[in-house]
């Protein structure tokens, strides 16, 4: 029996995507799809986003590009030439999915509208992932990650208590998560279309909006407004809320923080468990006293328990120690880690989370983050590092489409590929 294959093995995806859609292509590729990334000659502009290998800027050294383009093959193609469009049509004829992030109407303006591509390939699924969708008054607006986090509602929920940072602005969490939100929904829509195709044989067109994806990713904020007319306020390191809630983020001895929620609130049972946890370090203060089994006494001493005893307990220990000790006693707490701390996480090592990815042209391999979920029957796998610019031009144009090397040379000279 051959080596187990990813669940999307056999699927051919054409990706014409920048920062908005490249993560969706990675999600498909790491699960086994043959994702062919089509870049403009000279390479996709995302190759110029840092950080760079050894901080030397170069389109083949962008770590951001590396991360978001694993498990893809790469070719170059200028769609704004007649030859480029003809080649694209041939590629589209053999594709299962096209993922594109061009401005609305761009492909159609080149004569590459979905209808004509679908006519030559009835099973073709085309997902257009754009900032605002193909219709509506904002359709042609420009965007960025920060802009989406503003309009989508993320920023309105994130920020600081007045006591921590007076007059703080709403804060947009980092990491490019607007693109992630759009890509998650795009992936869902593509997979739904693929499942439907297994039954019907029919492809379809998908108009996906990043703005809508972001607007959907604020938990109960919309329901709070619709059912209660409430607009919550921002608080440091915890849920937005209409009224002020207890702190849940505390500074540990090592200067980092711990997220310590008391699930169910401060009731006698939770206070007893909390006292036992703190007492195992001799730091329970007066919390072991029987009077704290009276809800009225607890209520009258909330600040003493939370801001005094709990904060003092966490301030006495390293964050990682608090995290594990609390979890072992059933508290849903966590250390607020910087990403690099995850490399030392034994649980992730047990799960084989970190992957070595070869960069043969550099003669080196690097550690990459692994899978969001373990597919026990069809493994997730980074099949290759991100493609170099035009790395698979010969493989795809000559070996698959049957162009001669002479034709390839001509196309390269005229900047078609």
């Amino acid at each position: 029996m051959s080596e187990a294959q990813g669940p999307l093995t056999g699927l051919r995806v054409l990706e014409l995507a920048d920062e908005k859609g490249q993560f969706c292509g990675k999600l498909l590729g790491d699960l086994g799809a043959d994702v062919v990334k089509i870049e403009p000659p000279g390479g996709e502009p995302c190759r110029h986003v840092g950080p760079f290998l050894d901080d030397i800027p170069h389109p083949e050294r962008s770590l951001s590009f590396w991360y978001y383009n694993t498990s893809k093959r790469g070719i170059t193609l200028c769609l704004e030439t007649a030859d480029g469009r003809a080649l694209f049509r041939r590629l589209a004829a053999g594709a299962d999915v096209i993922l594109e992030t061009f401005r609305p109407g761009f492909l159609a303006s080149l004569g590459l509208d979905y209808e004509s591509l679908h006519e030559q390939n009835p099973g073709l699924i085309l997902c257009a992932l754009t900032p605002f969708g193909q219709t509506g008054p904002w359709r042609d607006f420009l965007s960025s990650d920060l802009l989406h986090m503003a309009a989508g509602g993320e920023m309105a929920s994130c920020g600081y208590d007045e006591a921590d940072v007076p007059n703080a602005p709403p804060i947009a969490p980092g990491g490019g998560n607007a693109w992630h939100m759009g890509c998650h929904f795009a992936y869902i829509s593509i997979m739904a279309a693929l499942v439907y195709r297994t039954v019907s044989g029919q492809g379809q067109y998908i108009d996906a909006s990043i703005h809508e994806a972001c607007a959907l990713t604020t938990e109960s904020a919309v329901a709070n407004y619709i059912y209660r007319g409430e607009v919550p306020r921002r608080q440091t390191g915890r849920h937005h809320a209409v009224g002020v809630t207890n702190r849940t983020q505390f500074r540990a001895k090592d200067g980092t923080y711990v997220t310590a929620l008391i699930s169910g609130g401060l009731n006698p049972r939770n206070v007893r468990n909390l006292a036992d946890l703190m007492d195992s370090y001799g730091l329970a203060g007066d919390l072991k006293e029987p009077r704290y089994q009276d809800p009225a006494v607890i209520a009258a001493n909330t600040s003493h328990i939370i801001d005094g005893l709990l904060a003092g307990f966490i301030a006495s220990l390293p964050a990682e120690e608090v995290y594990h000790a609390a979890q072992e006693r059933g508290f849903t707490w966590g250390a607020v880690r910087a990403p690099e701390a995850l490399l030392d996480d034994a649980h992730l090592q047990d799960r084989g989370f970190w992957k070595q990815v070869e960069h043969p042209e550099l003669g080196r391999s690097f550690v990459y983050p692994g899978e969001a979920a373990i597919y026990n029957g069809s493994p997730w796998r980074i099949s290759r590092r991100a493609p170099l610019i035009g790395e698979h031009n010969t493989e795809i144009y000559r070996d698959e489409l049957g162009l001669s090397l002479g034709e390839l040379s001509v196309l390269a000279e005229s900047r078609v590929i």
Partner: protein
Amino acid sequence: MPHPRALENIRVVDFSWVRAGPWATRWLGALGAEIIKIEWPESERGRLPSSTTPRHLEVNLNTSGNFNDTNVNKKSLSLNVRSRKGLEIVKRLIAISDIVIENFSSRVLRNWGLGYEQLCEIKPDIVYVSMSGYGHTGRNHHYTTFGPVAQSVAGLTYLSGLPDKPPAGWGWSYMDDTGGMYGAMCALTGLYHRNMTGRGQHIDQAQMVSSIPLNGPALLDFTVNGRGSRRAGFPPGNRAHWPGTPLVNNYRGPTVAPHNAYRTHPGGYNDWCVIVCHSDEEWQRLAQVMGAPPWAGSEKFATLTGRLEHQEELDAHIEAWSMTLGKYELTERCQAAGIRALPVQSAEDRVEHDPQLRDRGMYLPMEHPALGTHKVQNAPFKMSATPAVNHLPAPLIGQHTREIVEDLLGYSHEELRAGFDDGTFWPTRRVRFPYMEEMLQ
């Protein structure tokens, strides 16, 4: 003619509760799968406690607004799975289903006798998606999460905030939303794989673990360059770079200025706008929109490096101008001139004032038997052949028990009544809702 549904004839046994799991199955339901939510009022988490019950209604198992929005497109079977009889019934249901999905701690389903091996005995090609905190393997599999804890442990919280301040984090359970996304993604991917190969599988999704791939560039900066995120000027708030600190990419996109949030007229809590200029040209256009004030013509703002170096001054000037305009007017003026600007929007703004979301039909009214008619959030994608639509309000608890037990599983009406009498379908000492009395007639 109504459109076909992408997941027509797919049945999902949904044990999930609280938020992440139900958010996953909500979308499978919108895509046309039949979602059967298994619930038990004594151990229910998601309907109660409710802080989103309309003020004029009593808080009970059927009046949470947030539950409604999170559980549209589903049916509810109230069933005591911890009883022998309840377990037998759920096994009969699994035998005619395609997907089992749950978001319990790592050992719960196995302890019920419904681990993957047992599920396979009942339905050999079942797609089983477990959505736990830390996964079913690894030494910390028994740890538990809420969204904020997964976000903290996995590094997401740390990436949000101002330098030299505590982390601002995420003001909601981002990883309940996104964990739900991964649950739905796993279910669909497993289903596609099953349709292509005939084989099911167990997919072990974990909220904490799913958070980590969202930090890719930051992690590679460490594993490749040895640079951690605990450093001066990080995280840089809404800026691409914090002035006066080393110039290093912050993993959001290009390092440019201006790139910030600015107060707008009339200065209320959510009167803010963000403006970003990706190039000198965009900056020059912004200067024009601001009326070409003399300060904007200064040499120190003419170059990207100058704008990054003098960001404090630049931002103060921009804010003096932005304060004179409402956030929607500022947005329109900037975007008309080809400048990246959008308003900070609260939920109220999105539902009431966002012209794009209105035009796209993002919030459409739907009637719920206990809550009345309210707007519900729709899919952010439009599929030409199989649109994702909300077609059922969230179920009342146990609303579909008779339909599922009698029509789908073939039990007799007498068996249904017996199951209510012996506590299989509803706790014997708990008052039944009127619709339960009706289904027993």
